[in-house]
């Protein structure tokens, strides 16, 4: 079993009375591309930051490359690249100066890669950072995180300020960089379609709890929307286990369920005396259904 790149064990984080993360247990293995999905305020940024050691967990442990996050060694830090949600660039410097100042910290800095990305993404390097647009700042922050070829890349809403073309270009670059080597990527995003393309695993956060952790493909096969067409009028609750939401109109009903097993279809059809059809859902619909009701 390969050593986990990222590991959280019963990780909790509270700020005073406010509990932001609750008993999160999750791991990321080398080569995973994990999408962290959750509503605003679900705790995505806090989770990423605690995993990276920016702050101590209130209880539980956070580890990167087997080391405790608050006490990362030089070796571990050299293998990590991070793009925060609010870029941490120094306004007063030019892009060129910021690049120089950052590259100094890393022995494995790849100048060629940095130059290539800068020219592909057309980032103006001789203007002060204060004068760059939010998209250009985001791209610069990405270059700073990718330049030393980290084994673990953590991105917090990395494409929020980019236009669709730039987003697609970034995604391709990301997949190029991670696909060829055994790199691990952990990224949080609102843009579900990007997650669907790039991620092979998802972590879904709801109110600080991890309600799903696993392969994206398995998630899509597990959460389905059942279309029930009864021969008689359907009343009351249909009593389908693991139902997330239920809408009944006369003889038709639409029920979203989690942990669906296709073999249950026949049994359910017989019990309800109806036609049952399982419609697979895209990630966005899955996300909406998982949040329905509560």
């Amino acid at each position: 079993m390969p050593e986990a790149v990222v590991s959280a064990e019963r990780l909790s984080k509270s700020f005073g009375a406010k509990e932001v993360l609750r008993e999160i247990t999750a791991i990321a293995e080398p080569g995973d591309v994990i999408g962290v999905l959750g509503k605003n305020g679900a705790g995505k940024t806090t989770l990423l930051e605690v995993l990276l050691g920016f702050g101590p967990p209130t209880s539980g442990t956070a580890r990167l490359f087997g080391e405790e996050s608050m006490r990362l060694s030089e070796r571990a830090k050299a293998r990590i690249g991070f793009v925060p949600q609010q870029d941490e660039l120094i306004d007063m410097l030019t892009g060129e100066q910021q690049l120089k100042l950052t590259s100094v910290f890393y022995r494995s800095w790849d100048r060629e890669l940095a130059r290539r990305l800068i020219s592909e993404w057309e980032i103006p390097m001789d203007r002060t950072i204060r004068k760059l647009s939010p998209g250009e700042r985001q791209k610069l922050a990405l270059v700073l995180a990718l330049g030393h070829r980290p084994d673990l890349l953590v991105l917090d809403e990395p494409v929020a300020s980019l236009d669709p073309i730039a987003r697609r270009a970034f995604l391709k670059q990301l997949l190029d960089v991670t696909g060829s080597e055994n790199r691990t990527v952990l990224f949080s995003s609102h843009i579900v379609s990007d997650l669907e393309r790039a991620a092979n695993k998802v972590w879904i956060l709801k109110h600080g709890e991890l309600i799903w952790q696993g392969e994206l493909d398995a998630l899509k096969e597990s959460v389905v929307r059942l279309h029930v067409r009864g021969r008689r009028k359907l009343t009351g609750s249909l009593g389908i286990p693991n139902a997330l939401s239920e809408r009944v109109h006369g003889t038709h009903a639409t029920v979203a369920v989690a942990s669906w097993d296709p073999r249950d279809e026949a049994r359910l059809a017989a019990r309800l005396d109806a036609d049952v059809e399982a419609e697979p859902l895209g990630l966005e619909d899955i996300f909406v259904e998982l949040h329905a009701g509560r």
Partner: protein
Amino acid sequence: MFVLNPQSGTPIYRQLMDQVRRLVASGQLAPGTPLPSVRELALEHAVNPMTISKAYHLLELEGVLVRNRGKPMTVAARSPRAAPRAQRRKQLQADIRQLVFAARQLELDKEDVVALIEENWEDENAGSGRQRRKT
């Protein structure tokens, strides 16, 4: 060659596998044809290469594709009709269910659907010049 929709409820690897199987079964991918590399396909569609590689791997296990060391994967040498009819029918199952569902919503009955199928079949046959089969 392939149409991949990441937003669909069907996982990407499944979509790719279904499409490869169909193209092989219909003869459009002849035995020995090389398939695009994992990296090429992943970059073209901007999807995770692991998804493509998973699809290829499962197809290799099924015997549809053959792995060649150092060279791209190729279609296995088997006759296009080698898969039993029952298996081929099963592959069409999902599409048929969608068709039936849509028809029910439009409140069309079975006769309407069959007539539509026959119409479209004629057009297909005219285009590809294949023999008509009983449905």
